């Protein structure tokens, strides 16, 4: 009985999604994922490659699992994340942009038949930003300054996701390298929090927050009077966004590599901050932002 019940449910579910022969373009559910995914989709469609839209599918584990299972074909991933996919988070190699990309490309090709295409010259890594009205009087510009300032009793309250607070390469490695420790009363932990939430908390001083976890390419930073503190000891792994595609699909459409290369080469840190800001702050749909950028840079013809 139960089996037949399950089977009928599954069959019914099957009717909802149709079989596909197109290139399934996906992305993570965050803002940048939306923008980069829409760019990939627009470029492929423009070159006459049919695509299926599975953008903003879910978090990193969901999207990664879907790629490996062959449910999606291409999505933008960050070089630094390969450290976690291959359980190599301890390796200092991930802090060097070139080496990190080469290693990610090599490992994924060998183990999963997944190809990393040309990355963007932008590092969307974790960082800490302090309210400018706090940072300037205190003379805090780098994380070394920040560590010293906090240890000397500087009043800080950092809004961050629980991932940032707990995962070894994030806050704990900052604390170890720059010699400071944040107690529970100096942290506001937003479980599953996006940087949008942490930046907003710091910008508005919600619950006394004056510092925020940020990503390098956050579109909101410029709008929020926050100063991003320089990672002067290079503690963080490099997170360059690059399209990753299943080798099987790339073999079928080898032109994808050459199509996406000029697009990603144009995506500097400032460009991504600007594009993300248009989506997040101004509320323009990611598809329009992507289209506008591609057209303005003559990447569609």
């Amino acid at each position, binding site marked *: *009985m139960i089996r*037949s*019940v*399950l089977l*009928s*449910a*599954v*069959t*019914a*579910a*099957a*009717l*909802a*999604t*149709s*079989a596909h022969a197109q290139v399934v373009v996906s992305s993570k*559910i*965050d*803002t940048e994922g*939306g923008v980069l995914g829409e760019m990939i989709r627009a470029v492929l469609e423009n070159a006459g490659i049919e695509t299926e839209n*599975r953008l*903003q*599918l*879910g*978090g990193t584990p*969901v999207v990664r*699992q*879907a790629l490996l*299972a062959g*449910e999606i074909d291409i999505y933008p991933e960050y070089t630094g994340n390969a450290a976690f996919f291959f359980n190599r988070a301890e390796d200092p190699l991930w802090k060097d942009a070139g080496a990190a990309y080469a290693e990610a490309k090599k490992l994924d090709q060998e183990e999963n038949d997944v190809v990393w295409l040309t990355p963007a010259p932008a590092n969307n890594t974790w960082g800490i930003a302090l309210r400018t009205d706090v940072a300037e009087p205190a003379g805090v510009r780098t994380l070394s300054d920040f560590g010293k300032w906090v240890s000397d009793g500087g009043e800080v309250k950092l809004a961050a996701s629980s991932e940032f607070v707990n995962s070894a390469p994030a806050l704990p490695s900052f604390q170890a390298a720059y010699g400071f420790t944040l107690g529970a009363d100096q942290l506001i932990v937003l479980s599953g929090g*996006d940087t*949008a*939430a942490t930046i*907003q908390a710091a*910008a*508005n001083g919600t619950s006394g927050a004056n510092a925020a976890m940020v990503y390098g390419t956050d579109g*909101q930073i410029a*709008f929020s009077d926050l100063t991003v503190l320089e990672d002067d000891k290079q503690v963080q792994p490099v997170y360059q966004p690059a399209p990753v595609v299943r080798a099987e699909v790339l073999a079928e459409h080898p032109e994808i590599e050459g199509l996406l290369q000029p697009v990603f080469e144009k995506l500097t840190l400032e460009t991504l901050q600007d594009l993300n800001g248009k*989506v*997040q*702050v*101004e*509320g*323009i*749909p990611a598809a*329009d932002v992507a289209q506008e950028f591609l057209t303005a840079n003559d990447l569609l013809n």
Partner: protein
Amino acid sequence: MRDRMAILLLPLAASAVLPLAVFRANRIAAGQPHGLVDTLGPGAAGLALGALALVIGALLALHRPVLRVAVAAGLLVGLILLMGWGAARLAADAPPQARVGPGTGFWIALACAGLLVIDGMTRLRPGPALRLALVALAVGAGWLILGSGALAQLSVLQEYQNRSGAFWREGAKHLWLAFGSFGVAMLAGVPAGILLTRLPRIRPAVLNLLTMVQTIPSIALFGMLIVPLGWVAANLPGAAALGIRGIGMAPAFVALFLYSLLPIVANTVAGLTGVPRSVTEAADGMGLTARQRMLRVDIPLALPVILTAARIVLVQNIGMATVGALIGAGGFGTFVFQGVGQTATDLILLGALPTVALAFLTSAVMDALIAMLPGAAR
């Protein structure tokens, strides 16, 4: 109006001095409250205040529920149109990324008007057919107001205009998830319930198992289904071609189906076992076969109880389908979770409001249908 509803007139009057609108420089900036005069301009604000005084006076003077419902419904529609007009006025000389949303004053007045309508309706006790007609009227009015563009400058509708294509696409997925899984659960659950009335010895075990399923948090159940369905997709020939995947619609659909089973099976059992013994004995005495008795006596008598379960399941599924967005199933939850990620409240509302409206409508329609059944308590 010597009744408990008079208490609503105080907050209704007070709402006029609270901020009517909230203005934000961009969609995630902190809001600045704007009062009635600020939002509408002195002339229109005066008219609005006069209208509000008239409404309060009318509610105090009128005692017939029909009239009070009419006045309260008028207030409801008027408020919404006023809000749309005020938003357009505030947005007129602001940059395009600025957003205008309702303020506390609007929400309080809206809640008061809504409660007055609901109170009046419970006093009127309309029959099921009239209730269906009123639901249709409400949907039609909502459709007209939204379609007229009168609310186009409200922040939630700006989010809608930016993704109207995606809205209807996700809406269709949401409906399919909620109603499709419900349909399959009815097809499986009612026969299972009938079977269980014949097998009293395994009944507690099955019902306990279904209860256990019900207690698994939805996000956990969605996650747990990724692995087995992924396996099925990879190992069962043809499964993947049918669209069975570990991620996407399939796990969400199966999860909603599993959640639907307990109310349907349990109520089918309760409905059938609740048929009075005298009735079944009379049916037997008339020489009905077991099959005839089931179809002509037991099921019709149990139907209101079974349909009550159907209503619970539908409302539950409509709400729970939102979580499916986390595993790529789509639905209105997509906007909720994107909005949470971007801290864009209006985007969250774009997902949440239609979900609530859908659940409310479905519940009202099902209620009316159950009441229309022959022999239903009126």
